[in-house]
């Protein structure tokens, strides 16, 4: 009984360590039929954002303020690392009807 308890506490500690808030994550956004999905994403500084293009035409993920411009080739992907806190609107340069938004929160 005591051993089981110790084990479960150890397991709990291990689980918490893995989910520590300072570990950078990868947030994935799919591009399908001219849509960023999800269109709204919340990340933390240091997180990686990865777009995967499932369409048969090439796209871009381009920050409205010009901070980044990521090429998303057909059936390919592109990524950035969130550098600073902020609210970023982005779009596809080839198809400006495709729009998305990223909220970057502190670490």
């Amino acid at each position, binding site marked *: 009984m005591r051993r089981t308890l110790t084990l479960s506490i150890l397991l709990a500690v291990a689980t918490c360590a893995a989910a520590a808030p300072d570990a950078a994550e990868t947030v994935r956004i799919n591009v399908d*039929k*001219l849509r960023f999905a999800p269109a709204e994403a919340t990340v933390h500084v240091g997180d990686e954002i990865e777009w995967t293009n499932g*369409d*048969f*035409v*090439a796209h871009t993920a381009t920050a409205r303020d010009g901070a980044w411009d990521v090429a998303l080739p*057909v059936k390919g992907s592109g990524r950035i690392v969130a550098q600073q806190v902020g609210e970023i609107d982005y779009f*596809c*340069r*080839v*198809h*400006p*009807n*495709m729009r998305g938004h990223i909220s970057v929160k502190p670490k």
Partner: protein
Amino acid sequence: MTLKFIAAPMALLATCALAWSEDAKPNDAQIAHIAYTAGQIDITAAQLALQKSKNKDVREFAEDMSRDHKAVNDQALALVKKLHVAPQNNDTSKALLKQANAKEAELKRLSGAAFDKAYIDNEVAYHKAVNNELENVLIPDATNAELKDFLSTGLKIFQGHEQHAESLAQSLK
């Protein structure tokens, strides 16, 4: 009786002004032909722009058009093959080509900023017209679900082109 006699041809004329009358809706083979022809026309226009324009934004736009419309038409060909549909020439395709040839002749006579403006203005008008035809005629009339779905994705791509052309037209003013 006389009134009816006059009214009938008038109504007929009004119907003919639209691309298709109620009892002559385009079939899937004709719809596929129209969509493919519309794409080829824009690729030809893009090639002319790449020969003539020195404007970086205009050239990039033309490259986007050439690449996207080729990708859409390649998909269209694969789909009609899968569906065993042979694209069928028709009056709308013929009218589109005739208009495009006249526009091409006009654009060929221009150069420099005048060419850039005329090409982009035409891209706005052309995408508007084709998108309107897709949205209100071709997509509603397509009977095959896969063709309908494919044309709907095409429409989203071309609506993107229309917006891109519109913002470029603004910056060229």
